Every structure is written in C-alpha cells, then in structure tokens.
C-alpha cells in the first residue's frame, strides 16, 4: 500500500531497508529535514563526527572492517567539500560508501546561494557514480541503485545529492524493494577457456608467484579462504600489496611479505625472477611495480580482476580473467582438480637465498626506541587479541605494514591509493563501531595524527575504546626520508615543530594518555594501553633519524633495493625526481 511521505522520510526508510546500522555525519542547513527525520528513530544510529572528512574516513573504516557499505550524511557546500578527500580515498581503494549530501533548494541551484557548491560536479571523477535528485518520487529507486553500485563489481563511493526542497516535498512511497531497471551488471565468473589456460600455465610454471591485492579482501572472507586453498594446491609462493595484507596468513612458510617500494627483498626479487605471475585483485600500482620497463621482464602474467579498466592499464598482461576474485578462485580450484603440484624446490631454494638477506633487519639503538621495534612489540603483545589495525600515512604506515603481521582479512585499514594523512583515527572509530568487541589500534605518526585529531571527541562521545599509538619522531618522517635520498638532506618544512603534548591532549578529551620514553618502558606502556578499558593515546618517542627500509628508490627496478646500512644520502637525476 502506498502512502505520502517526505523525501527525507523516504530516504530514512530506504536506508533502513538497506540494513544500515550507522550513519556518519554532521548536520547543517541543507540537511535539516533529513536530521529531523532521523530524530528519535532508533533503527539508525547517527555518529556525530567533528569534521566531515572524519565522517567519510570513519565510514571507510567501518566498511573495510565489516564488509558492509559505509554511509555518510553531510550538508551542502563545505559539508560536501570537506567529505571529498574521504570520497576520493574510497574511490582509489575501492571502498563501498554511500554519501548523502544536502543541496540548496532546486530553485536556487546555480545562483551562488549560501553554502552552495556543485557537489555532483566536484565529485564526478572521484565517485563510481553520483546523482542529483530532482524529485522525491525518484529517491527510493536511486538509493537502491546507489547501494548496488557501491557494493558490487569493483566497490566504490556513490554520492546522492539531495536539494532541501526535495527532502521536504511529498511523494508516494510503498514499502518493499523499489521497482527499477537493472542497468549495472558487473562481471562475476571468468570465461571457462581462460580458466583452463590459467591452470595450464600454473601447472607448468617453474617459478610461479601469486601477487594479491585489496580485491581479495573486497571479495569477502570466502575469497581469502579460497586463496589459501589454491596456494596449497599449487605450492606457489605468495606476496601481497599494501591493500591486500591479511588475505593470506603471515606465518605461512610460502608468505613472502609485502612487495613494492617498501616490500621485502624476497618478494620483489621473486616478482622480478618469476616465470609466471598470477595477479589477483591487484592493479599494478606504481608503488608496486617500480620502474615499469624493468618490471618482471621474463614472466607470463595472468590478471584476475573485476574491473576491466585495471587490465593492461600500466602493465600488459598475457591472460586477463574478468571476474570476482572469490568466484574465479573457486573456478580455478575446481579446474585444478586432483593435479599434483610442480616440484618447486629449486625456486623455493632461490627464494630462501633472497630471504637470507634479512631485508627487514634494522640496527640496534641503545639510546632511543627504534620504531620498528615498537611495532614488533605492539604486534607481539596484542597478537592474541587479533586486533584491527588502522594507520595514517607515512613511515609509521610502512613500518606497520612490515612489522605487524596479519592472519585474516578485514583487520588492516590503511589509505593505500590516495595516501591520505588523517585517515587512521576516524577509520579506527568506524571500525570500533562495527566491531565493538575488537581491540582497534590506530598506528600513527606525530604529523598525520594531527590531520584529523578533532575526532578524539567523537570517540569520547560514543564511548569507543580506540587506541592511538603514535610513533613520535618529531618529523614528517617520509618527507624527510625522501629529502635525505633525493635532495641532499635539505629538510624543507618537514620538521614537526610545536607539537602538542599528546598525553595532556588525550586527557583534555577524556582519554588516557601514556608516554613511552625508553625501551625499558615499551612493553609496560603497550600493556597499560591494552588493559585500559577506554580510549588511549600512546605517545611513543622513537629514534628521530630512523628511516624506512628496504626501499626501491623512485625510478628504480625491483632488483635495485636499498637495504638498511646501504649508503643512501645524495641526490637523483631529474627523471627520477619527477616520479611520484
């Protein structure tokens, strides 16, 4: 039976119908009708952030840690533009978000009205799709389609811009799934001929390697199980991108660690020397490939991806398989049948040779805590709790990727593609809401944490026991590291001057603050953080000059890694400097 409802009310019903538990948002003039419709509605919990960027990142953290879409609600103009960084971040890292933005009333659009911004125009190229809703009668179908687009195929953010008059105007509404044409049909299973060819290549490879990415996580926990099964059948070693960490257990003997710019020596060497690369849900990002013309020169390449545009984008592949990771892995396992794995003894012996370089080794420091050690201790002391780890962006992020180890999907939240400082704290908040019983830790740097530090208040308000572990070296460490490598240590603006007292700051927000100043206090400090039932900031003072190695410098090949102890200071030619 249909009834007359306001646009705002139809929106709320549509969100409930999608199973939305949380909306991350911030009110303002152009969304007041929606906030009024949410008032007193116990079906949806609104999480009030302190800045709209925080709303978008919190929704990302929720989505990444639960596999469900994150929902954001912000006002027009600055509300929408503040959310854009999070939307762009979700677009790069394929995170399903539905972002609802208020807009000035239809009649005022284009008049430079108060808090007007062309949200649909601004978000056009950082969303998977976006809508400007002109009539409340379209809303139910649009919301339904938006969730389908955000969550299927290669996931991503979808923006629904709703003018204020459309929120207020009435339209007829009927309970139940809205009638709409299905116009988005992403690929699902791979073509059987391609599957057969892939199996033939896998079965005959002498030096195969799996190179897996965030697509395996996005495909759901089943994909991670299937990945392990296929790996067991074939015996091929496995490396992963930053976004793919957790899809394969880090204690497995065939785990090579992360690959790429700050990946392990064994992972990068194995990629370079492999005769077959099976890329699964990874997109050959420049941080992974290093110098393109030297990238894995002798390998046949199979690329399994749901996004046709990711295939042959930077690296030409021999066998593309379009489809969902889990479904294609299932097909591959079935097609493998009862074959015997190749004898890969020789290949694995070569890999052991590269492992023996111990590329993650770092020097002992008697005077200060090495940041790598801090992460190792954090990992050891929290391991039994199977924590969810968020990060900001910079050296601490790479150290976390290298020295924290993951054993299952959806435990690792980081901004990979866009590299957004300020992602981690709000992402941890979103993850804690979606996983109330988990230990959620944001591993941060002293510079990054300040980019969305206002969200400390959000955690306080919603009684979220998130932990922030700051590796404080008083630098924008990754910037300083690049200046050391590329610009003869001219440290232009990379010093973190006038840092706040993080312990006092924590206390000001009602958090607990802990400072760790020496290695002797490290374990006790971490344990005190774990044991405290509420939110905690740990200000861990670390060796200021430590750098993040191994590293493939800008413009270099996988085989040209710098390890700790190599002479690195100096300058680079212009072509290398011009690379990102």
């Amino acid at each position, binding site marked *: 039976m249909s009834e007359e409802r306001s646009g705002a009310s139809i929106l709320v019903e549509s969100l409930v119908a999608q199973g939305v538990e949380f909306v991350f948002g911030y009110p303002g003039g152009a969304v007041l009708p929606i906030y009024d419709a949410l008032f007193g509605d116990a079906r949806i919990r609104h999480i009030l952030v302190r800045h709209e960027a925080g709303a978008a990142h919190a929704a990302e953290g929720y989505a990444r840690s639960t596999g469900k879409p994150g929902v954001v609600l912000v006002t027009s103009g600055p509300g929408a533009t503040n959310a854009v960084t999070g939307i762009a971040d979700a677009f790069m890292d394929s995170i399903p978000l539905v972002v609802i933005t208020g807009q000035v009333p239809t009649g005022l659009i284009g008049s430079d009205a108060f808090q007007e911004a062309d949200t*649909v*125009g601004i978000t*056009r*190229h950082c969303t*998977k*799709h*976006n809508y*400007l809703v002109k009539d409340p009668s379209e809303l139910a179908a649009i919301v339904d389609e938006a969730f389908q*687009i955000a969550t299927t*195929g*290669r996931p991503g953010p979808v923006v629904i811009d709703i003018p204020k008059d459309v929120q207020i105007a009435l339209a007829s509404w009927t309970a139940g799934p809205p009638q709409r044409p299905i*116009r*988005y049909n992403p690929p699902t299973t791979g073509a059987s001929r391609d599957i057969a060819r892939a199996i033939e290549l896998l079965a005959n490879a002498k030096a195969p390697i799996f190179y897996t990415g965030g697509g395996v996580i996005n495909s759901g926990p089943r994909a991670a199980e299937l990945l392990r099964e296929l790996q067991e059948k074939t015996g091929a070693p496995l490396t992963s991108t930053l976004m793919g960490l957790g899809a394969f257990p880090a204690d497995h003997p065939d785990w090579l660690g992360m690959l790429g710019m700050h990946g392990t020596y064994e992972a990068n060497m194995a990629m370079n020397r492999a005769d077959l690369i099976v890329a699964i849900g990874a997109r050959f990002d420049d941080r992974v490939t290093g110098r393109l013309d030297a990238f894995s020169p002798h390998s046949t390449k199979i690329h399994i991806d749901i*996004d*046709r*545009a990711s*295939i*042959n*984008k930077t690296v*030409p592949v021999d066998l593309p398989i379009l489809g969902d990771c889990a479904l294609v892995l299932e097909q591959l396992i079935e097609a493998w049948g009862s074959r015997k794995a190749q004898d890969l003894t020789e290949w694995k012996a070569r890999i052991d040779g590269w492992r023996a370089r111990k590329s993650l080794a770092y020097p002992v420091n008697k005077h200060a805590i090495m940041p790598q050690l801090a992460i190792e201790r954090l990992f050891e002391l929290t391991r039994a709790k199977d924590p969810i780890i968020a990060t900001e962006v910079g050296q601490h992020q790479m150290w976390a990727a290298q020295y924290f180890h993951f054993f299952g999907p959806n435990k690792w939240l980081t901004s990979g593609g866009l590299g957004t400082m300020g992602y981690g704290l709000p992402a941890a908040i979103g993850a804690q809401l979606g996983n109330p019983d988990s230990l959620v830790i944001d591993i941060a740097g002293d510079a990054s944490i300040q980019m969305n530090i206002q969200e400390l208040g959000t955690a306080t308000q919603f009684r979220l026991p998130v932990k922030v572990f700051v590796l404080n070296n008083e630098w924008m460490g990754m910037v300083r590291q690049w200046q050391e490598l590329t610009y003869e240590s001219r440290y232009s603006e990379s010093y973190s001057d006038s840092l706040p007292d993080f312990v006092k700051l924590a206390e000001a927000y009602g958090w607990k603050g802990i400072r760790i100043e020496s290695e002797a206090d490290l374990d006790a400090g971490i344990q005190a953080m774990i044991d405290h039932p509420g939110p905690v900031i740990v200000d861990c003072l670390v060796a200021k000059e430590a750098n993040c190695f191994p590293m493939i410098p800008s413009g270099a090949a996988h085989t040209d890694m710098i390890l700790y102890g190599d002479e690195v200071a100096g300058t680079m*030619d*212009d*072509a290398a400097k*011009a690379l990102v």
Partner: protein
Amino acid sequence: MMKIKHEASERHVLTITVDNEAGILAKIAGLFTARGYNIDSLTVADITENHAVSRITIVTHGPPAVIDQIHAQLDRLVPVHKVVDLTEAGPHVERELALVKVAGTGDARVEALRLADVFRAKVVDTTTSSFVFELTGTPDKIDRFVSLMRELGLVEVGRTGVVGMMRGAEAA
C-alpha cells in the same frame, strides 16, 4: 636534462550509447580531461523516441594502449550502455556536416560556386557578395573544401564533428 616524451598515436572513432541523464556529457568529457585523453571531436544527440538514450561519437587519438584504456574507462561508467570502437570494429562510414561562408565578387565568387558544385555542396544562403555552403562528407573532404575556399574569401566555418556507423545490415 629531462624532456617530456610524446608517443606515436593513432586516430579512433568511438560511438557510445548512454542514458540521456543530466551530467552525462560532462562525465564523459571530464573523464577525457581527468585522465589526459584527447578529444578531436565530439557529437551528441538523443536517438530514441522517448528521449531516453543518446548516442555520442568521439574522435580521439592516442597510442593503442591508451585507446584500449579509453574504451575500458568509458565502459565502466554506469550510464554507458555500449562503447564501439568503429576503427577497430571494421568497415564503417564517417560523415560530418559543415557550413562554410565565403564572401567575394567577380572571378573569386564564380570560382567558389564552381568548386562547390564539384564538392556537391549546397548553397543554403546567398547575398550579392556572399554564399553559405552546406557540405557533407568525410572530415578529409571538408578539410580540402575549406582549404580551397581560404583562397576565395573564406569568412567563417562551422562543423558538426564526425558521426559514424558500421557498414552492413547489423547494429554495431
């Protein structure tokens, strides 16, 4: 010293059928600028009775790998139904319409009219000292006509850009 490198490129004609919704043209044109692709010409008009679907023809150029990316990037836009690379797909026709204004008197005027006849251009407006010619053909034919008119008092040119279609009985 670092120099910016340029790669050899080829010309391709793409036809794109899309939902006729607000912002679709901006989305497609913006995709080209955002990813650094080239647009040589772009035409768009709705092609269905209920005005629900439009057909866009884009002439672009780029290295083969870039052309393939353009195809894939267009294909993944939600309102895009179908992308056909006519250049890749095989024999096809390309047509463009131009309006060409030429002013002059005496021999130049006579010669312009005579050449227009050779090119099968129609006179759609005239004064005692000017013509507006309407000409349909391949972009190349129009280029040649315009270049001849340049010597005979060319005032103004308007071109629609290319529309294209596969030869034969089937839809592309």
